[in-house]
C-alpha cells in the first residue's frame, strides 16, 4: 500500500506589513516574484514545499512565523534585512524565487548576515527545515550551530545562465516605492490512497 499526498499553497497579499512585537516571531520575506510570477526554484522545487519546510522548522522550535512580500528590491541582503527589521524577535529570513536564502538580524549591516546560503541549486528541503530551525533558535537567544553549507565548484558554471534569467524575471516584478505587505498563507493537503 502506498500513501501519497500533495501539498498546495495559497498565498494572498494583504495590507502593509508593520513592525511586529511578538518576541517569538520570525519574519520570512519573499522576493517580488516568489510564488506568483515564478513558482519553482532553480532546481524545480515547488515554492510551496520550500516555504512549508522553513515554517515547519520555525514551528518545531516554538517560533511563530509571519510571511511578508517585498516589492522594492530583488537583492537578497536587503530582503533579509527588511524581514529582520520588521520581525518581533529581530530575526528574519530572506528568500529569492530561485531559492537563495539568508538569515538576518536587525542590528547587523544589510550586507552582513547570520547565515547565508548562496548556492541555490544545492539547498535541499532538509536544509530549508534547518534554516527555519536555526532562525527560531536565534530568536530564542540560543547557542546555535550554523547549518552546514555545501559548496560545489561546478554549480556556478552550470547554473549561472539560468540564475541570470530567473533574476531578470524576479527584477521585472519589482514595484518601486511599494511598501512590503503581509502575506496570508495556507496549505491544503489532499490524500490519495492507492492500493
Amino acid at each position, binding site marked *: *500500500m502506498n500513501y501519497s499526498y500533495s501539498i498546495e499553497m495559497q498565498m494572498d497579499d494583504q495590507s502593509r506589513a508593520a513592525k511586529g512585537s511578538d518576541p517569538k516571531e520570525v519574519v520570512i520575506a519573499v522576493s517580488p516574484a516568489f510564488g506568483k510570477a515564478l513558482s519553482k526554484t532553480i532546481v524545480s522545487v515547488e515554492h510551496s514545499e520550500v516555504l512549508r519546510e522553513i515554517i515547519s522548522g520555525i514551528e518545531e522550535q516554538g517560533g511563530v512565523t509571519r510571511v511578508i512580500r517585498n516589492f522594492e528590491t530583488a537583492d537578497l541582503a536587503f530582503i533579509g534585512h527588511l524581514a529582520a527589521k520588521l520581525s518581533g524577535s529581530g530575526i528574519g529570513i530572506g528568500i529569492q524565487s530561485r531559492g537563495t536564502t539568508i538569515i538576518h538580524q536587525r542590528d547587523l549591516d544589510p550586507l552582513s548576515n547570520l547565515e547565508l546560503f548562496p548556492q541555490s541549486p544545492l539547498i535541499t528541503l532538509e536544509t530549508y527545515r534547518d534554516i527555519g530551525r536555526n532562525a527560531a533558535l*536565534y530568536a530564542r537567544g540560543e*547557542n546555535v550551530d550554523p547549518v552546514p553549507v555545501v559548496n560545489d565548484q561546478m554549480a556556478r558554471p552550470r547554473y549561472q545562465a539560468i540564475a541570470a534569467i530567473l533574476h531578470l524575471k524576479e527584477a521585472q516584478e519589482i514595484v518601486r516605492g511599494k511598501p512590503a505587505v503581509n502575506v496570508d498563507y495556507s496549505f491544503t493537503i489532499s490524500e490519495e490512497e492507492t492500493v
Partner: protein
Amino acid sequence: MSRQLIAGVDIGNSSTEVAIVEVCGNEAVFLTQHLVPTTGIKGTVTNIKGIKSCLQLAMSKINRTISEINIVRINDAVPVIGDLAMDVISETIITESSMIGHNPDTPGGEGIGIGQTILIEQLLQHAEENKPYIVVVSKKFDYEWVAYQFNKFERQGIQIKGVIVQKDDGVLIHNRLQMKVPIVDEVAMIDKVPIGKKAAIEVAPPGHVIRMLSNPFGLSTVFDLTPEETKQVAPVAKSLVGNRSAVVIRTPAGQIAERKIESGSITMVGNRMSVKVDVNDGADEIMESYKKIGVLNDVQGEQGTNAGAMLNGLRQDLAEVTDQTIHEIRITDLLAVDTKIPSSIRGALAGEITMESGVGLASMVQTKKTSIQTVSSLLEKELGVSVEVGGIEAEMAIAGALTTPGTERPIVILDMGGGSTDAATNDENGTIRTVHLAGAGDMVTLLINTELSLHDLELAEKIKKYPLGKLQSLYHMQLEDGTYLFSEEPFPPEAFGKVVIREEKGITPLPIRHSMEQIRTIRREAKRKVFVTNAIRALEQVLPTHNIRHISFVVMLGGSALDFEIPEMINDELSKYGIVAGFANIRGTEGPRNAVATGLVLSTLKRRDDRI
C-alpha cells in the same frame, strides 16, 4: 666605575623569561624583560633558539642589541620533566536495544504513556480497539499526514499513548493532535526499535527531567517487575537520569551493562613500602595510597593494560629526550585526577552519550643531570657573549620572590607553571628545601579539552585563561557573575547567541552547545583538582615538619599564578589553615612573572658584597 649589562635567563617548562639589568658597582637598574614560549624540552640545546629571540626582543625594547650584553646568566634547570596521560576506565554498552534516553531539543507534549510498540503502517492495517499503542514513525512520513491519521484513529476509538519519531517533528505533530500524547523525536536508528513489545515513554515539562523511568521502582511499577528483575534494570534507570525524555522498551533478554575496562593496576614503590592500586579504584584511592608509601622511588604499570601502556609511553618519550635507556627512568611524582569523558554508548538507538569515568595521570621523572653545560657553551658560541650557569633554580626563585614588597625570610614559594608545581622554602639558616610535583597548567588544559570534548588544545588553553560571556544581542553580553556588559561596537555576527571567551582583545565564540555555567564549572573544577590538590601536597612535602600549619606566608609564582582565579582558589583553601597566601609582585612591578630571571641577576650583586 664600569657599567655592565647582565641578562638573567630562566628556562621553564613552557616559557623562557629574561630580565636585563644595568649594574654599576652595587647599584642595579632593571632595564627591560621579556617572555617567549620555550622551544623544545627544558634543559636541552633546542632551547637556544627561544633564548636568543627572547634576548633580542628584550633588547629591542630599549633599542640596544645582544652584543652589548656583558654576561648572560642561565638557570641550572631542575632535571625533572613531566608528562600527561588520560584514559577511560568504564564503558556503557546496551547489549540488546532496550532503551532510548536522549535529549532531543524539542520533544512533543509531556507525561507518561505505556503501550505496545507498533509501526504506523501496521496500525493502518490492523488496529485493535482498547489496546494501548506506542506508535513508531519513520522519516518517510510527513508530520501533517501523521497527525491527520492519529486524529482519525482517535475518533475510531484506537488508543495511542505515545509516539516515537525519527525526524525532528515532535512539536509539529503535537501541535496538530486533538488528543495530546508524549512524543520523543530525533531517534536516528528507528529501525532498531523492537516492535510488538511493551514500552513506556516519558517526556518531562520544559526545564524538568524525567522522574518515572529514571527511577528503578518507577520501571518496576510500569513493567510489573519482580525484585530480582528490578535489580537487573537498575542500570537502565541510572543511565536515564537527567534526561528530558526517554523510552524504555522491555525485551526478554535486553539488558544494559556498565562494563569496567581492564585499566590495570599501578605499583608505587616507596622508601617505606610499595603498594599496588587498581586504577579503576579512582584518583582518590591512588593519592591516598601514595601518602602511605613515603618518598616515591618509582611507579610501575601492569604489563598489557591501559595503565602499563600509559606509563611505558611516558618512559619511552622521556628516555628519548634525555638520552637515557628506558630502565634508567624513574618516576618521582604522580598526580591522579578523576575525570568525566563523554563517550557514545555502544548499541544506542539515538546516539546517546554518557559521561564515562576516566583517570588522568601526570607524572614527573627524575632524569640524570641535564646537559646545561652543553647548552651554555653552545649559547656562548651562538651569541658571542659570555654565558654562565647560575645557582640552583629554587634559590634564584626565592631571591626573586623576596623582591616582592612586604616579604621576608623565612619564605615559602609555590611556583605554579605549565608542566610542574614546585615549592621551595628557605629558613633562617639558609637551608633550602624543594619539591617538584607533577601536574600544573597543562594538566588543566587537558582536562578541559577532554571533558568538553573539544579536540582542540589551543581552544582549551584559551578557555583556561580567560573568563566567559554569553552574547544576548549584538550589543550586550552576560558575564559569568550575572552582570551585563554593553558594547559600543557590534560584536561579530558569527558570535551571535554564542558563549564566547573574552580575551583582552576581542572575543572567540565557542563551537560547543554547553551553557556558560557548565563550561565555567568544568574549568573551575579542573583548576581545583590540579592546583589546590598540588598546593597542599607541595607545602606538606616541602616543610621539614610536614605540617602546613607551621607556615604563615606563601608566595605564589609562575604563569599559573597570573590566572584570574587560581590564586584566589588556593588562598581560599590555605586560609583554612591560617596561612596568608598571595601571588608575588616581583620588583614591585612584574607580578608573579620573572622571579628566577630576577634572582639570577640579583645573585651577581650579592656575590660581590657577600650579602646573602
